[in-house]
């Protein structure tokens, strides 16, 4: 029984009168790929936001790697080992692909501004190391040839993959992928599924939001379903697909049922 990397316990998130998440409890086990699905507005991105510290939850707790994430600053959460991609691509367009990844990797550096300025050996070492690692990550994701191109000039598919490489650059234990297949054609989705599995096999834990059902079901070890901010299913892909509540949430209840 592998241990949980991150646990959400009775997490609720209210914004004024709107309840985005209501008493949500689930966990992600180490080295697992967990798919998070649900109709639009179900609260999936809110889950990402509360994990990464964009919002402070109104009640419940989030335990990551044994420690609570309450009140922890966002960049510190990343340093602890959580990194994400964004649904609408948010790369730093004026920087190269390599620099985008290196910026994420900077979070673990011991050297900072002063050592960088005076060229202390530790700064030079870390810089060299991280640069090589960044190129490695780009190669791993399959976009190594674009490393010196400006992010804003990259084709869409490359940008999406760069988002993933960048998040990996932060050397996270938990990787949050927010609709990584958006806008992909079927062939690209197949490639992406293989990539995600490759990522997991390399030792990362993945929490994945995706709308493409076949992709999610194929790639995930387990699936959690949200609807109107509540968890309505938490099981293997096969079982979730057949779950009546899930079907209703997506397709609605047939009209003649009372």
């Amino acid at each position, binding site marked *: 029984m592998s241990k949980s990397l991150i646990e959400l316990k009775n997490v609720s998130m209210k914004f004024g009168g709107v309840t985005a998440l209501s008493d949500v409890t689930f966990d992600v086990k180490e080295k697992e790929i967990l798919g998070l699905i649900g109709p639009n507005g179900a609260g999936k*991105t809110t889950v*990402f*936001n509360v994990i*990464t510290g*964009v919002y402070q939850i109104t009640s419940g707790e989030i335990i990551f790697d044994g420690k609570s994430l309450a009140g922890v600053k966002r960049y510190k959460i990343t340093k602890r080992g959580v990194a994400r991609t*964004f649904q609408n691509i948010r790369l730093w367009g004026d920087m190269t692909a390599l620099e985008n990844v290196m910026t994420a990797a900077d979070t673990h550096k011991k050297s900072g501004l002063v050592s960088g300025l005076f060229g202390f050996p530790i700064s030079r070492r870390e810089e060299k190391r991280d640069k090589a690692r960044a190129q490695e990550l780009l190669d791993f994701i399959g976009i190594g040839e674009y490393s010196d191109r400006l992010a804003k000039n990259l084709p869409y598919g490359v940008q999406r993959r760069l988002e993933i490489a960048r998040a990996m650059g932060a050397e996270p234990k938990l990787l949050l992928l927010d609709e990584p297949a958006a806008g992909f054609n079927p062939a690209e989705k197949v490639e992406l599924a293989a990539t995600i599995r490759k990522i997991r096999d390399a030792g990362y834990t993945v929490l994945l939001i995706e709308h493409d059902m076949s992709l999610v079901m194929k790639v995930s070890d387990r699936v959690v379903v949200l609807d109107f901010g509540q968890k309505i299913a938490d099981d293997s892909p096969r079982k979730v697909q057949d779950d009546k509540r899930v079907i209703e949430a997506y397709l609605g209840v047939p009209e003649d049922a009372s």
Partner: protein
Amino acid sequence: MVGTFATIIIIRDVFKFTQVSEYATGFRLWLILGTALVSAMLVSGILSMLVEMVAYRRLRRMNSGVLAPLISAIGVSMVLSESVRILTDSRPVASPRAMEKKFLGQFFDAGIRIDNTIIVVSALILFAVLITFVNKTRMGKAIRAVSMNPNAARLMGINIDGVISATFLVGGLMTGAAGFFYTLKYENTSAFIGFELGIAAFTAAILGGIGNIKGAFYGGLALGLLETYASFFLGTQWKAVTVFIVLVLILYTRPNGLFGEALTQTRA
């Protein structure tokens, strides 16, 4: 909206002028004042629209970010204020006394003068008109739509250029009126007033919260009161310092101004 404030700084330099050319006579006072006010407003409004078309429109089309228009605005400000300065030979211009500064009566300890009353009442009327315009008319709604989401507005068939022109026109009208009141009360003006008042306007807008007309109103009110009390208790030289310190404190507790909407929402 950012550029608008820069423009306001500029316009203030110029509107005073219209006021000066009016003569003071004893009778038909209201007619004269009314004409002066309207002409001041119109000149400012039209000037404001022209400025937008010449100095900002292109930058807006090119999506140039916020700093390029700011520098352009500074340039415009210099052009306008220098033009005025050259025309006035760098000296302040005294405005003829348009009316007797009669006392109307007492309100507790404060004397009520007619010119102050006119100003306050007119300002309130103008403000009421502005609020109605922004909230109730079609153009007002269009303005708000564009400020919230220009792309969606365009897709809804709103003519962005026209709306922006209208916004600048309205801004100019208000500023022209402000200039008129200023000259009415202080009876002189110069090419340099615009700058200081413009900064005050900007500060008041920030204080009230950008994007919010009601906020601007209260911001202006708060600023005025703050300045006056600060002058009174600490002496006029510390006025600006106090105001800014209070501004910092307020922005600290309410980072979006008293009533404002967040300029940059944290998105994720």
